[in-house]
Each structure stands twice: as C-alpha cells, then as structure tokens.
C-alpha cells in the first residue's frame, strides 16, 4: 500500500518533468504521457480505496509512514504519508476527475499553440493536489497548498494573451495569498507552542492540553483563513468567478472538484483542533457565502459564471456542514459535488465548444443538436438542485439536517438553517433557468445554432462517466461508515477528565425528517418558478428585473465586492506605497515649507549673523534673500543631504523612543 501511495504521488511529477522539457518533441506533443500517468495513479488509488471500504470501521488508517527529513534545531521534521478513509476518498475523487479532465482536454485543447505546455501544467497541478491530500503534517500541507496555488495560477492565466485571463490569474494568486498568510501564522503558532508539525502529534498535544482556550480558537480561525482563500469563501471569494477565464476543463478540475475543495478537505483533516467558537465562525462564514453567491448566480448571463457562483455557494454549504458539526455531511457533499460540478463544467465546456460563446443569450434549443451533452447536463443539474434520488439531494439534505439540528440546540442560530434552505431553493431556480435558456426553447442566435454540433468522443465520454457517478453515489451508507466525526479526546494520552458528549440525539431524527421534506419542497418550487419564468414565460424576467432595479443591480454587480476591494484594499495599498515613494520628496519639503512662514524671522536673524560674520562682508545682503528663496525652492528628492538629515532625525527619534 505504501508503494501505491508513493507512486500515486510520483507518477504525475515524473510526467510533469518529462512533459515540460521534452513534451513538444514527443509524438502527439506528449499528451498521452500525463494522461497515462494520472490514469495509472487512479488505478493505484483503487486498491487503497477498497482497502478502506472493506475494513468497515471509521478512523481506520490505511497507510502511515514517515521519514526523518531534516533536523530543526533540536527537533526533527518528519515528512510522511498518511492515508486514512478521508484521504482514500479524496484520492479517488482527485485522480478520477483529473483523469477525466485529461481525457476531455485532448479533445478540447486540440490545436492550441501551447498544447504540450497545457498538459504539463495540468499534471503539475494534479501532483500538487495529490501531495496536499497525502501529506501527514502542517508544514507539508502548507507547501503543497502553495504549489496548488501556483498550478492554478499557471492554468488560469494559460491564455495569457487575453488581458482578462492574466489579470484573473494574478487576482486569484494574490487573493489566495491573503488567506495563506493567516494559515501560515496559525501553523507558526502551532509549531512554536507545540513544537511539532505532524497531524497526529499536534492533535495529541492539543488533546493533552498543550494549546487551549482562546488561543486554540484563534489558531483554528487563522488556519481556516487558508480555507477562506482557497475555497473562495466570503470575503475572499472574488477570485473564483474571474478564474473562469481559464480553459473550461481547468475550471472543472480546479474550480469545481479539487483546488476549491482543498480548503474543505483541510478543515476536515484538522477538524479536531477547532473549538466550538471556531466552528461557529466557520458556519457563519459558510452561510454568508452560500446565500450571497446563490443570489448573485440568479442574474448572471455567462454560463460559466453561473456555475462559478454556484460552486462558491456549494462550498459555503460544505463549510456550514462542517461548522455545524455535520462532519460527515460536509465531506459527503464535497464528494458528490466534485462529481456533478465537474460534470456541469465539462458539459458547459462542450456547449461553449459548439457555439463558441459563453453568453447564454447566444444559446437556446441546443437539446436536439447535442443530446449527450443535454442529458448528462440535466442529470448534473438535478443533482445540484437536490432532486431525489440524485446524489446531491442526499448530501445537501444531510447538511440541512445538521444545520437544523444545530439551530434546534442553539436557537439563536436558527437563521443559518433558514438561509441554507432559501439558498437551496434559489439554487434549483438558477440551475433550471440555465437549462431553459441554453437547451430548450428557440435558438436565439441562428448562425451559431446552425454551426453547433455534438462534441467528439473524448469529450462526451467523461460526461457520461461523471453522469453515472452523479447518480451512483447516492448511497449514503458507505460514506457514513467511512467517515465518522473524529473526537479530540481519542488523541489524548493523558486523562483530561470525562468529555461531555453534548449531542442530543432526540433532535437528530426530527431534524432529518424536517430537512428531508422541506428540501424537496424548496427544490421543487425553485424548479417550478424557473419553468414558469423561463419556459412558459408566464412571468417576464425583464419586467421583474426592472421593477426590482436596485436589487438587480446589487446582484448584477456581485454586491459590489470588487469595487469595494478596488476602492479600499488595493487603492489604499497603492496609495500608501505612493506616499512612501514620495516620502523622500515630500516630507522634508513639507516640513520645511510648512514652517517657512513662521520661521522667516529666524531667517532674518540668520541673515544678520551672516552679515556680521566673515562672509557677510564678502556677500551682500541681497544674496541672503536669494539664498533663502533658493533653499526653499530647491529642496527636492534625490538629494543626498536630505537623506542624511532624515537619518540623523531618525537617530534622535530612536533615542527619544527608547527613553520611554
């Protein structure tokens, strides 16, 4: 098993190295090599997964091995591989979707001038993602975390000739980095207080009371910052919709199934370190994200952007699941969502490939032209909308139940459930809006419509596979026995007193029942409303849009988040930097000029000294005036003496500061 795990990781790396250097010279530009490597990784992951599945116990560890990597002062850093049930699920998800995306890309990217480079990047990304999943410590997860960021940066900006693409990649990178800094700080706190990096070691030490109380809450929230960035949670969600500028298969891989899920995975992996307060924080962030993104998705016209906002929204769901204590539910949704969202993205890619446009106003009636795409897409939509018996229904239902149960236990937070329920309805609405605008009705752009055709085999095959999986992962039982909510207490080596199990099972059953029916109800009404508006056209969307102009504008402008960031963060940074650049120029000048008037008396005094002094006899009085006007005029930047003066001033300031 350990060999499997290592090979899973190394195969893509090997393929990447070969591909980046000599890929262009290989037959078919080397596309078979990364594809083959990742498929091999998938095949190698299967035994691990079945081992986990057949072992029938939660908390089962398939592989755990670590090696001393280096010494760090007087303690050693180990670097190892840790595969438990959660990892085995993630391995399957990542390798499977990555394989399908590779295959799909062979068709989609055909003829691109950097075809071989594309596969190299894709492979690099897969490697990073697999490393992130397999690694057994915080240090390693951070390294791979950044590597994933790098991979996505390269892929989003792949068509860098488009300015929007290169801007988007930069935005994604920087936004992610903001979150990463928090995560880095959190890891630093863990390392400096506990002195270890390994997950198990850290959990053990925390369970033994090495870190607790507010400090632990803060640490948890800081680490969660990383997930806020990577999983596009409020308020760092702004990068994901822009990231749709990348090639569509990339969107499917990165922005549906893997990278954005990394944040959720990380929270799941480190679940036990979150205190109740930290979990509440996670849940609230998740709720805001889920609701806000869902409402924005209603008004989008770009097919990929609808899916992007829906992804953000669903990620919010997962966070709510985790935050309200529905550990299994959150991670279950991660799995099901990975499949059906990848399906939706690849399906939209197929549509875009056919009509050469991302704007839904250019589509319509495509059902007959592209039957495979339509039917698979429909399955994905039903899953996402939460229609039974498709997979999304079960996982979303579980999250709603968990939120409701949380609300029942803490009535102040009932609004989380309500917001989630509303979002579920909205989700169904905008997804069917998408279906109606794209696949049914009349073609809006006849020329594009005539040109449209079903996609090649390499592209439809992944669609079918994913559609099967979207139906097939419906059985909730398997995941329930694989993933049980971990308890911190199990890691304790010393007794810390009885742990109170506050779970009130009386509510659990009731919550499930209520959630089940209410979620079906809202999904149904969402779909119905979409049909009324966009299929039968009983209600005019435009009329309502103009009636609710302010709301529409708010949504259309995505709650003005980009503008807000532009206005505050980015501009403030630039502004600050300009101030500092001007520091050399302005401060001393201002200092001088500002008090110039006040000091003209001093000036004349100085003039008097000059007159009676030695040089006063040489130079006339008239000169003194010139000296002063000159002096006031010419103090400018780049002058070495201004620098010296400021250095002296700083010494004085430091001296005075130290006095107090």
């Amino acid at each position, binding site marked *: 098993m350990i060999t499997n795990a290592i090979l899973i990781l190394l195969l893509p790396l090997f393929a990447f190295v070969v591909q980046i250097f000599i890929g262009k010279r290989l037959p078919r530009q080397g596309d078979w090599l990364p594809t083959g490597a990742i498929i091999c990784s998938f095949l190698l992951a299967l035994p691990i997964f079945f081992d986990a599945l057949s072992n029938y116990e939660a908390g089962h560890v398939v592989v755990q091995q670590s090696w001393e990597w280096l010494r760090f002062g007087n303690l050693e850093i180990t670097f190892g591989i840790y595969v438990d049930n959660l990892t085995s699920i993630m391995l399957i998800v990542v390798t499977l979707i990555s394989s399908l995306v590779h295959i799909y890309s062979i068709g989609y990217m055909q003829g691109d001038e950097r075809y071989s480079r594309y596969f190299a990047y894709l492979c690099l990304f897969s490697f990073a993602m697999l490393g992130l999943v397999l690694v057994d410590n915080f240090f390693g997860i951070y390294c791979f975390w950044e590597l994933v960021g790098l991979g996505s940066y390269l892929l989003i900006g792949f068509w860098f000739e488009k300015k929007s693409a290169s801007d988007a990649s930069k935005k994604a990178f920087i936004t992610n980095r903001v979150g990463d800094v928090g995560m880095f700080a959190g890891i630093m706190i863990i390392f400096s207080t506990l002195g270890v990096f390994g997950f198990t070691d850290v959990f053990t030490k925390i369970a033994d009371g090495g870190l607790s109380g507010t400090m632990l809450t803060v640490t948890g929230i800081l680490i969660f910052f990383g997930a806020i960035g990577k999983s596009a949670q409020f308020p760092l969600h702004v990068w994901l919709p822009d990231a749709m500028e990348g090639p569509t298969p990339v969107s499917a891989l990165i922005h549906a199934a893997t990278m954005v899920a990394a944040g959720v995975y990380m929270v799941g992996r480190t679940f036990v370190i979150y205190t109740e307060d930290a979990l509440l924080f996670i849940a609230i962030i998740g709720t805001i994200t889920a609701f806000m993104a869902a409402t924005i998705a209603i008004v989008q016209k770009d097919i990929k952007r609808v899916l992007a906002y829906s992804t953000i929204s669903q990620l919010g769901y997962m966070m709510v699941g985790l935050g309200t204590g529905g550990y299994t539910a959150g991670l279950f949704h991660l799995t099901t969502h990975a499949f059906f969202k990848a399906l939706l993205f690849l399906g939209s890619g197929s549509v875009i490939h056919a009509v050469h446009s991302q704007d839904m106003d250019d589509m319509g009636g495509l059902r007959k032209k592209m039957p495979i795409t339509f039917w698979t897409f429909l399955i994905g939509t039903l899953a996402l909308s939460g229609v039974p018996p498709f997979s999304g229904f079960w996982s979303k239902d579980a999250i709603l139940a968990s939120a409701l149960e949380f609300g029942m236990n803490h009535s102040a937070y009932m609004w989380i459930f309500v917001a989630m329920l509303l979002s579920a309805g909205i989700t169904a609405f905008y997804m069917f809006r998408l279906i109606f605008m794209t696949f049914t009705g009349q073609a809006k752009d006849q020329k594009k419509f005539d040109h449209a055709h079903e996609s090649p085999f390499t592209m439809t095959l992944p669609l079918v596979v994913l559609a099967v999986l979207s139906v097939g992962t419906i059985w909730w039982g398997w995941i329930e026995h694989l993933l049980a909510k971990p308890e911190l207490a199990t890691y304790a080596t010393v007794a810390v007193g009885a742990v109170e199990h506050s779970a009130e099972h009386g509510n659990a059953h009731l919550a499930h029942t209520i959630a089940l029916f209410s979620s079906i109800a809202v999904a149904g009404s969402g779909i119905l409303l979409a049909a009324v508006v966009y299929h039968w056209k009983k209600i005019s969307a435009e009329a309502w849009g103009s009636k609710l102009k302010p709301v529409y504008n708010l949504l259309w402008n995505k709650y003005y988040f980009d503008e807000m960031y532009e206005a505050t963060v980015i501009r403030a940074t630039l502004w600050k930097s300009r101030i500092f650049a001007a520091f*050399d120029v302005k401060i001393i000048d201002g200092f001088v000029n500002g008090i110039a008037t006040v000091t003209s008396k001093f000036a004349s005094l100085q003039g008097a000294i000059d007159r009676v002094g030695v040089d006063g006899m040489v130079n006339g009085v008239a000169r003194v005036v010139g000296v002063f006007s000159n002096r006031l005029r010419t103090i400018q930047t780049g*002058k*070495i*003496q201004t620098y010296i003066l400021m250095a002296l001033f700083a010494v004085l300031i430091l001296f005075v500061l130290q006095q107090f």
Partner: protein
Amino acid sequence: MLAVGLNHYLILSAILFCLGLFSVVTKKNAVTVLMGVELILNAANINFIAFAKYVDNDLDGQMIALFVIVTAAAAAAVALAIVLNIYQRLKSINLDEADSLAG
C-alpha cells in the same frame, strides 16, 4: 568648573561634532561637505584621545586616532576624485544638482 577636566574635552568634541554634522547637512558644495566630515572625525578623535588619557590610561585611543587619520586621508582622496568626476559630468559640484536618481 573652570578647571579643565575630561568633560571639557568632551563638550568641545560634541560642539565640533555638531558643527560637522551641520556642515554636512546644509552645505551644497561637495568639498565643504567633505570638510564637515573631517570635523566629525576630528571630534571623534578628540574623544578617543581624551578617554585614552582619563579613562583607559593606555594608548588604545591614540592608536585608533592614528588609524582614523589614515583612513580619512584615503577616503578624502577617493571622494575628491569622485567629486572631480562629477564636476566633469555636471560642470558643478553642488550636491543638490546631483539628483537624477530619485524616487
């Protein structure tokens, strides 16, 4: 107070030091600025020699003063060569005119 002791030398040196600083910061002419630097170095040397006599009672302070004089000569030579070079470029040795590198 009038009888000369260590403090008198130190205050003498402090005044010389400040005059040197003032000259370095305010004079436009590069040569005058270098003169100001020499004042600063002289002020430090007075300190060294005074401390050598009153505190250390040894020659350490005098030795460093000697080395300071030597390095001052070397620095002055190179600095003046640079000043002459600037004069050939700008036809001026006013420091405030050498400000094309800025920001």
